[in-house]
């Protein structure tokens, strides 16, 4: 299989732009997901009245439906009842809606892994509830949930491939267009795979490294 390198070089800037779009969407999606995850897991952990139930329903709805439908519903469905969102806004909201529940579960299992005796030990030296959360519970919870948080980041970055379905000019759409217009199938697919590898592999290595760094809590006390 001979690749047409001239075509690849010519289309490089297109892929560059599309990769940036994908990356930008992934970045905001992950950031908001983390934010939603922290809030929701705290609500669940401290069993905050009334809100706990809403969070549980949200998590189930988000985890048990495909991102594609979530996006279509947001983009086409909500427009028709008067809520108009741009493609990119829709994509970010969709990714955050999906990722938020995954992050919630990850943080929550981290919080639940902090032992009762650790908390009592903190109380017995006179820490206030806030200090307890800041110095004892959160650092340990983050360390425990790090592997799942990392896996979720990769998962979300991969899920960005789906936002092309709502007309965002991302890597998938560029590829489809180039195949459709120029029949340069292999070249386009090759660039698509390379683009994703360039985004995902470094992130994957970085997360593995980060995981090792914050792993202390796993070694018990």
């Amino acid at each position, binding site marked *: 299989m001979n690749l047409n390198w001239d075509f690849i070089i010519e289309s490089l800037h297109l892929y560059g732009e599309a990769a940036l779009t994908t990356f930008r969407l992934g970045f905001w999606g992950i950031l908001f997901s983390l934010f939603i995850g922290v809030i929701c897991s705290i609500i669940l952990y401290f069993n905050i009245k009334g809100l706990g139930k809403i969070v549980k329903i949200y998590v189930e709805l988000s985890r048990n439906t495909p991102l594609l439908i979530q996006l279509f519903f947001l983009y086409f469905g909500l427009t028709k009842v008067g809520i108009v969102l741009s493609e990119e806004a829709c994509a970010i909201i969709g990714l955050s809606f999906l990722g938020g529940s995954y992050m919630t579960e990850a943080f929550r299992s981290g919080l639940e892994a902090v032992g009762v005796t650790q908390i*009592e030990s903190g109380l*017995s*030296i006179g820490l206030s509830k806030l200090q307890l959360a800041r110095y004892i519970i959160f650092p340990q919870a983050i360390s425990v949930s790090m592997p799942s948080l990392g896996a979720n980041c990769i998962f979300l970055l991969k899920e960005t491939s789906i936002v092309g379905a709502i007309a965002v000019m991302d890597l998938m759409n560029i590829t489809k267009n180039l195949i459709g217009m120029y029949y340069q199938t292999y070249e386009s697919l090759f660039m698509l795979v390379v683009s994703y590898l360039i985004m995902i592999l470094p992130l994957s290595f970085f997360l593995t490294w980060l995981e090792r760094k914050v792993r202390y809590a796993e070694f018990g006390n």
Partner: protein
Amino acid sequence: MYEQDNEELLVIKGLHKEYNDLIVLKGIDLKIKKGEVVVILGPSGCGKSTLLRCINGLEKIQGGDIRYKNESIVSKDVNLQDIRQQIGMVFQSYDLFPHMTVIENILLGPLKVQKRNKKEAMEQACELLDRVGLLDRQDSYPRQLSGGQKQRIAIVRALCMNPEIMLFDEVTASLDPEMVREVLDVILGLTKQGMTMIIVTHEMNFARSVADRIIFMDEGDICETSEEPEEFFTNPKTERAKHFLNIFQY
């Protein structure tokens, strides 16, 4: 009122505690004087650990009162944080914070709770570490220490808050036999400095040598109190204590 002489540091009256329907403490009465070393003995599940946990405000109680320096620690408007700074507690499972170094573990309370000067707190921490023979381990993480070392650090962590009274909850129970000694030696050192202590333990010989008073508990109640430890061990008054002590003899 709170008197300076012959003071009763801790007064427990009719302490009643239950989990669901299980009664764990059936109206405990106990007074601890300043400088006293009280050892609580008793079979597993007799409520001795629960008693210690109640004193540190870790358990909700269903009846009675616990007064520290004549202030009730079970009333709604008590500042438990203040009380806990004065009542140090060491647990069976050490429970050092795994994500902090030894010195960070020790200084967390003095710096963040007591807001003390860092230099001064550091000096005290080092002095205490030196006393338990672990000054060189101040930058280690808990996972790098042996059980006995961890427990000595846990004691230093509690001592560095300058507590008036120390509670020891079976602090040698999960240690390998060869490490028990190093921890008990530290506690023995504290008795010489006149620290007020309540010790729950299964180390009978240790109890015998440090106790000013032995309290024998069974089924959530105090069965026997003895101001003469020697007397308690050789000639216990109650059948239950006799039975209990027999288990430890071969």
